């Protein structure tokens, strides 16, 4: 054992004497407020999501997809009548190897969220309706696509007029140190688009900082299955 296996008491004392500024009395209050906001993957939206799902098997063809409230396989809850009567906004056409889910903002049921992932959704996400845990747990080949749609937005600047299918090249790429990065290995493409009269926000997350061409192609193929009906 060398000498440094022990704590150096003299240095320890010097460190202990160093000043630490006083803490804000609001530290934990602010922290809790932030924790309760739980922005899914993007700051500033302030949206809370309530799961409203039906079995994935009910989504068979595009027309049915538009009429259905999709669901995660397992953990299914029947949608409330009020929500079920709402016209669906976004959906992913089903594809082998991809899980999909839909949810709505309970404070504004016109706001709908859809997710698709080539990995199972994390258990917590199927309860909260947010794919945050799935995003955090993405492995090197994991892809998560998360989209939401609004009929109107306060500021349309930045929403480009685009047509489906959306592609990664329509968005901006962030690989490191971006806001609300779920985990250090997770990179993302972010797309803001005005499609079919709707404002659509899409995030495509990869479990690697440098997604390969193969992964990006797989993501583009899933993006092509994102169905955006007219407003």
């Amino acid at each position, binding site marked *: 054992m060398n000498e440094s296996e022990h704590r150096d008491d003299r240095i320890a004392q010097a*460190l202990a004497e160093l*000043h630490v500024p006083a803490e804000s009395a609001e530290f934990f209050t602010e922290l809790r407020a932030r924790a309760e906001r739980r922005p899914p993957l993007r700051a500033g939206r302030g949206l809370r999501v*309530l799961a409203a799902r039906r079995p994935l098997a009910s989504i068979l063809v595009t027309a049915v997809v538009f009429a259905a409230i999709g669901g995660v396989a397992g953990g299914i809850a029947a949608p409330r009548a009020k929500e079920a009567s709402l016209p669906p906004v976004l959906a992913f056409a089903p594809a082998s190897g991809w899980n999909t889910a839909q949810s709505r903002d309970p404070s504004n049921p016109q706001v709908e969220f859809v997710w698709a992932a080539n990995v199972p959704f994390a258990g917590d996400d199927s309860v909260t309706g947010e794919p945050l845990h799935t995003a955090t747990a993405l492995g090197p080949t994991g892809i998560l696509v998360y989209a939401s749609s609004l009929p109107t937005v306060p500021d349309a600047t930045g929403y480009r007029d685009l047509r489906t299918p959306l592609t990664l090249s329509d968005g901006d790429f962030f690989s490191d140190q971006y806001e609300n990065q779920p985990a250090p290995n997770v990179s993302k493409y972010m797309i803001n688009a005005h499609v079919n009269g709707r404002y659509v926000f899409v995030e495509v997350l990869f479990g690697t900082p440098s997604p390969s061409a193969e992964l990006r192609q797989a993501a583009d193929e899933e993006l092509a299955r994102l169905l955006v009906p007219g407003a």
Partner: protein
Amino acid sequence: MRTETRSRQSEDAWTTFESLVRSRHDDLRRFAHRLVGDPDRAEDALQDAYLKAYRALPRFSHANGGSETGWLFQIVYRTCVDHLRRLRRDRRSLARELEDPVGDAKGPENVVIARASVSAALAGLSAEGRAAVLLVDGQGFDYETAATILGIPRGTVASRLSVARSALRQELGDNNDR
């Protein structure tokens, strides 16, 4: 009913988390401030770290000897390093920010000088070296735990400590000679 249940679960989760963090908050906070230097940035880093910990708590496991304290220090360390990268400040400006605001301190002059010198020496270290000495000498962690927190081999902890201690001892020795 589901909303009420979720709300209660959320309340319980927060209570558990806050209790866990508060019992270690002073040590974590001291570590973050010493590591980051800038007080505002340190507080931001600490909040970000706690937020990550809160969201990750359901997945925390005691498997493989994982301790909650080590886990929290690991999250705080990584978040602080992220914030330090963002700051992109050079060592000189970091040293300036780490200078102690000693306005309220009424200790002997030599203590004040020593504190400022130790602060400067600490700021002159790499973030990795600073973290090693803060964990082992500042917090009293053993090498094994420090290595786990820093995500480096035990031998690397030893080498980083050696460099860091050498710099700090020089400052302490110099001030003793004054």
